[in-house]
């Protein structure tokens, strides 16, 4: 497993207050390319902190984090921003879309920040919107969409630059059950297409149905890790095919 590890977290610790209890305490974790991993735990266990560290949104106080062969905890702010553009797509619980921009403009943003040519970026965005069945909303503003539709827009944005890694923090936490199931199926399909997935969730159903490995955190430490399942076959019917 370690030979094809996309993510390697080694003895990472993160404190928000000096002298206080670490939010993440000496965590080591590897994720292989193509894995779908759920990170679970009660509130305050360090799930989101761990995700933020892997995404480079925050820096650990101790330890190292290597993603796609690059040590990201020592990169400059510019370097880590470029890493995120290229390697890590982020999906948030409350979508984090920009209300002033249309759906299409929201999706285009990562490509525009990366300097992708306009025509190529628009083609890719349209492809994603169509694949996620929200192409008809391209000129709408996020405020007018349902929770499920907004999360699809966020997923499209996260996939815009074909990242090696998709990181989702409670992707179904702010949507209704039906929409949550749709999102879950979507993530499953993406993983089936080869997308590496790390999902933070407190929803055991989501974790069980849509991921193959569950890592549990308790007080900033890994309390259990189911590891890879024996059956690594791709689901028979992947309903969403997104070209990598």
């Amino acid at each position, binding site marked *: 497993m370690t030979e094809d590890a996309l993510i390697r977290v080694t003895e990472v610790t993160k404190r928000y207050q000096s002298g206080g209890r670490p939010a993440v305490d000496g965590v080591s974790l590897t994720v292989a390319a193509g894995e779908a991993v759920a990170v679970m735990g009660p509130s305050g266990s360090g799930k989101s902190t761990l995700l*933020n560290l892997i*995404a*480079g*949104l*925050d*820096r650990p106080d101790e330890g190292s984090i290597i993603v796609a062969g690059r040590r990201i905890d020592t990169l400059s*702010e*510019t370097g880590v*921003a*470029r890493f*995120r*553009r*290229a390697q890590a797509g*982020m999906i*948030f619980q409350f979508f*984090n*879309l*920009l*209300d*002033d*921009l*249309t759906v299409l*403009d929201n999706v285009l*943003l*990562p490509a*525009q*920040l*990366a300097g992708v040519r306009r025509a190529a970026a628009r083609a890719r965005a349209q492809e994603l919107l169509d694949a996620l069945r929200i192409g008809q909303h391209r000129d709408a*503003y996020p*405020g007018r969409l349902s929770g499920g539709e907004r999360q699809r827009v966020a997923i499209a*944005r*996260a996939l815009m*630059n074909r990242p090696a890694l998709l990181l989702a923090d409670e992707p179904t936490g702010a949507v209704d059950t039906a929409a949550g199931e749709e999102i879950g199926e979507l993530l499953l399909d993406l993983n089936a297409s080869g997308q590496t997935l790390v999902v933070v969730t407190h929803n055991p159903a989501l974790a069980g149905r849509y991921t193959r490995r569950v890592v549990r955190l308790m007080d900033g430490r890994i309390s259990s890790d189911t590891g890879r399942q024996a059956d690594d076959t791709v689901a028979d019917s992947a309903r969403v095919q997104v070209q990598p």
Partner: protein
Amino acid sequence: MNAAPVARAVVGGLTRRRVQTVVIGLVVLISTAAAVLAAALLAESSAPFDHAFSARHGAHLLVVVDPAKASAAQLAASARLPRVTAAAGPFAATTIGAACSRVTVRLGGPDGIGLEPMTLAGRASPGGPIDDVVLLSGHWVRRPGQVVLQYDYMSGNVPVGSTLTVTGLPGTPRLKVVGIAASITRSADAWVLPAEIGKLRPPGTPASAQMLYRFRDAGTTAAVRGDIATLTAALPAGTVTGAQSYLTVKAKDVSRVGAYVPFVVAFGVIGLVLSALIVANVVSGAVVAGYSRIGILKSIGFTPGQIIVAYTSQGLVPAAAGCLAGVLAGDGLARPLLAKAAFSYGIGVLGVPAWVDATVPVAMCCLTGVAALLPAQLGGRLSAVAAIAAGRAPRAGRGCAAHRMLSRLPLPRPVTIGLAGPFARPARAAVTLAAAGLGAAAVTFAVGLNTSLNLVQDGIHLSKTVQVRIFSVAACGAAGAEPMLGPPGSLGQGLTVRQQNAIEAVIRAQPQTLHSAAEADVQVNVDGLAKPVLVTAYRGDAAWTGYPMISGQWYTGPGQVEVPARFLTATDTAVGDTVTISFAGRQIAVRIVGEIFSSDLVMITDWRTLANADPGLDPDQYAVGLRTGTSLTAYRSVLRSKLGPGFVPILSALGVITQILSLLALIGSLTLLLAITAALGVLNTVVMQTRERLHDLGVFKAIGMTPRQAITMIVCWVAGPGLAAGALAVPAGIALHRYVLPVMFDALGTALPVSFVNVYGSWEIIGLALAGLVIAVAGALLPAGWAARTAAASALRAE
């Protein structure tokens, strides 16, 4: 009202918004300092003169009389005329040092530096019922051979203890300077014992004396003219040969400080408006950003009044601190400007009036209080639920259309997102525009003032057209010594024919010489004026000398003169009128054909105007104009080597005018302060904007925006308003310049040539239009950097 919780809320607000607290304090400090300076100059531009004139019993009128035409009894009777309230004199008087009389005043021995012509009056004591002369240093004359000087004779460069030698008189009298004094009436340049006047009168000069009068009605020029007419009619014909009104003296004295007033007031007003704008912006931003907090405060029991007090105080507390510091700074700026005036009036140390120090900070606090109160009331009136709901509700999608349009532009995405930013917050964008605009208007105004004042300085010294002046060493006092480049005629030493031929030969031989003209500077008496006027006469064509013309035309022959506004005012004449001058014992009628720019009482004319009366007239110097591109120092070196040690060539460009330098320094300082204030206003707006959009910034970072892209985006938030501000500010600044500059020079008693006012070139205007952008970007860079350095995770946690 329970003060403790309100105080805690205020302290909490101040410490949470440290940047804005500091911004308010600094902005109010700068504005208060400018306001104190403006008010002090306004108050003290004329008050010291009036105070000193009253305290020293200044003479409304100084009349020069011919004692041969009126007896002592007749002069004494003039004191009992109905309009006269007091009189003093006659004081014997004479003028020495005018070139035409061959009597010169020199510092040191007979070969010393030539000094300006000196009006001497004989006074046994400085005190009296009128014109109480104040001794500033030393003592009054006690013995023959002693002299007391007026404080500003030769710009105060002749100290107590100096020896003056009067050449050209029998015995070559020497006078020792024993004191420096100030006459509010400016009755003389120097005083000696009355018995000395006879010995110091140049041969052939008729005796004259001064009579000093105070009148019942002398408040206006017309009233003073009426008083002169009354006296002239009451005394035998020909007794009154000249008169000096105290209003002329006041105008010149007051102008020393008065010239500063218009532009300082302009800058002060800009500063006040900026302060009010920024304070209102900060407090309204705190209210809008703190809706949730206001709702929570209300839900725990804060009354609307307590909310209003808490938020108003968040503006008032730093403003009050800024006011106090601003008063000290304003006093510090005003003191050097007022000190010189105080010395000249002999009224001790002149400082900022206490009422200015008390009134200005109160006014500033009231202004900032109102600016803070209005938005604070907005927060106070909201219900708790409405406040919390307003604080938590998603922002309405304002600016969406702008985003759509700008996203189509072929520009980097951070730029287009930034440029669309102002449309989401139009009120805040307006504040940015106003702050940057006021700063840019101040810069535009200052650039114009700077250019105009430099033109004034060049115009006074003619340094762009008359680059070199050549004097004889005898005029300079010692080989190699350079005379002060003061008013022409200060040297009083004519060039001999041999010297003239030598100079003209050398000048003609230099290929860099474009023009040259011989120049004589003489003192003449003008009908109706108490003191002589300096006349500069040019031999040959002198139109190239480039005297700045205000109206009329350059003289075309003898009998025509150019004069400045001060002359026209003093003689109550206009271009086209004729005046009579006395020179070499002859009365010469001359016609005023043009008004030139000059702050002194001078006259320019053709050589023949004076030479027809005195064929032996010799030039004092040569004025030389050079071809473009000539090295001034190299030309001067050549002249020195060719002319030999008997002559001194001087570069006009070396002449400086202290008052103009002071003006330029003050303009530069005030402009910089206002530009900083404007940038602080922009900084404050960007800080509020980044705080409000911190979460969005986190999203941008999460999807891959680099720190440089974040800075670009934030700077572009203000770039649009900054550009618009510059476009609006330039015409405003130009209009302000066109209004203020003539007012400044009106205080100096002179008009300005149009060329001194129309000073903005096309490229200059384009450059100045970018000033708004520069100020806006300067204000945005710091908070942009802070925002770019914020960790993405922290930003995403912000609500």
